[in-house]
């Protein structure tokens, strides 16, 4: 036990060590690694190809043009890519609970969340983030925006906040698997479903759905709201003026809630067979 260090610092250190171990192990098979990164890039790019195909037939979707939708896509996929790289492994927690190997994580003197998140750290997931940021880069050049300091700063802040919001979803979804080990796919509905939803303008969706992803599961702050500010479009649901700058606050609340859910899940954990 590393005495004298605070738990978050200790967790980060453990995360770095475990992730590093998996990265070294992945890089042993370089060709296979390169291929799977390409595969991930392609797979994640399919969604954007679908958007391009749609725009081959129309000029605007829900009133938004291609560069504008690409901005939504880029923000959503880049943030999700970062979150998935850092926390994606939490999704396989159910398997460890089922086969009993979760117990070994509990007896190690390292925060459990750090171990679970770094477990089988998959560097190949870089593909998604890279693909998202390429689209984001193109969108930032292509959109018609009067860039000022505030707007320029808002872009990286939005990406980081989006990553925290998606990361919170991964952690909360992992905690849910303490209750229902086989239900890992429910999590996909929120994580993968969430990033897919955010790739399209809010004007496309039903009002109740938009309300749900604004007030209940505040995904809207990962791109819809800040993008509306950047593009000078009306906010979804007529949110107040400062809503675009509320993303950091929303992200902190999400992270705190995910932390609480995680601790509750961990406390309720009972080893298989007991």
């Amino acid at each position, binding site marked *: 036990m590393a005495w004298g260090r605070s738990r978050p610092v200790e967790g980060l250190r453990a995360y770095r060590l475990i992730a590093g171990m998996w990265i070294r192990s992945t890089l042993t098979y370089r060709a296979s690694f390169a291929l*799977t990164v390409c595969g991930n890039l*392609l797979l994640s790019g399919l969604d954007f190809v679908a958007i391009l195909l749609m725009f081959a*037939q129309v000029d605007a*979707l829900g009133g938004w043009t291609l560069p504008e939708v690409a901005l939504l896509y880029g923000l959503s996929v880049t943030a999700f890519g970062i979150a998935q790289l850092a926390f994606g492994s939490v999704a396989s927690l159910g398997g460890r609970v089922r086969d009993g190997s979760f117990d070994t994580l509990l007896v190690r003197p390292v925060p459990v969340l750090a171990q679970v998140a770094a477990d089988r750290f998959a560097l190949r997931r870089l593909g998604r983030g890279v693909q998202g940021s390429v689209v984001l880069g193109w969108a930032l050049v292509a959109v018609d925006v009067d860039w000022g300091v505030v707007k320029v700063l808002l872009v990286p802040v939005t990406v980081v906040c989006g990553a925290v919001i998606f990361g919170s979803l991964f952690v909360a979804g992992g905690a849910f698997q303490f209750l229902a080990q*086989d239900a890992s796919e429910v999590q996909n509905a929120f994580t993968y479903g969430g990033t897919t939803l955010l790739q399209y303008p809010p004007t496309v*969706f039903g009002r109740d759905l938009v309300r749900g992803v604004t007030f209940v599961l505040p995904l809207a702050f990962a791109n819809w709201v800040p993008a509306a500010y950047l593009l000078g479009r009306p906010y979804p649901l007529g949110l107040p003026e400062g809503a675009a700058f509320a993303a950091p606050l929303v992200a902190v609340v999400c992270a705190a809630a995910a932390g609480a859910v995680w601790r509750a899940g961990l406390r309720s954990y009972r080893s298989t067979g007991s």
Partner: protein
Amino acid sequence: MAARPGLVAGVPGRGGGGFRRYATYRVATAAGVFTNTVFGLILVYTYLALWEARPGLGGYDQAQAVTYVWLAQALFAMLAVQGGGFEVELMERVRTGEIAVDLYRPVDPQLWWLANDMGRAVFQLLGRGVVPFLFGALFFPTALPGEPAVWAAFGVSLLLALLVSFAIRYLFALSVFWLLDGQGVGQALMVTGVFCSGMTLPLNAFPGALGDVVRVLPWAAQLQVPADVLMGETAVSGAFAFQAAWAVALLALGRLVQSAATRRVVVQGG
């Protein structure tokens, strides 16, 4: 629509009881139903916006586009559009060498795996497909036919679609006899399956030459053709002929590759 993990989990165990095997995992099935419904919801709104901007795209009206979405969600697991059927296990058995034992069995491998996959498909249609489809039909305007004859034709078309889906995945899986590791093959299956089957967008809404190409590829037989048969958008005989031709051709090719592959097997020490 995003390719998504979860379906790919290879369930351990072997044998012909594909149906019973998948039916064991009830919570996982319920979770899958939920996820398919959520993805259906997201897609339905984007399609509605697309068809509002471009009425009659691909010969569909809005109700038909909505029907297509829910049909795709209902058949996604059954047809293993992004993989995740028998082939996961077959590729793993080739990698570990367990396939050598299988070759001793007095059954034809292609038929054996086909039976296995049929069981899985029937379960996933009933267990995972029906609920999202009913949800969609209940809450959105759909274009479903009333005549039993059309539904019967749809059933036949579905069976042919499954044969084509199996034949494609069997060919991909057999390639592991040469490649020895199935990870890349699995990814290739996912990319081609999701894109060329029309999971992201109906193939008849694909623009220009790209559309002309994808509509004659075997993947078109999986989702697009059954959907068009159900919604009366195509002549039934032509649809059956297209599907059957691909099924026969790919299954025959599968047999050829199978005999080449099994001749390659060298068991350690032998």
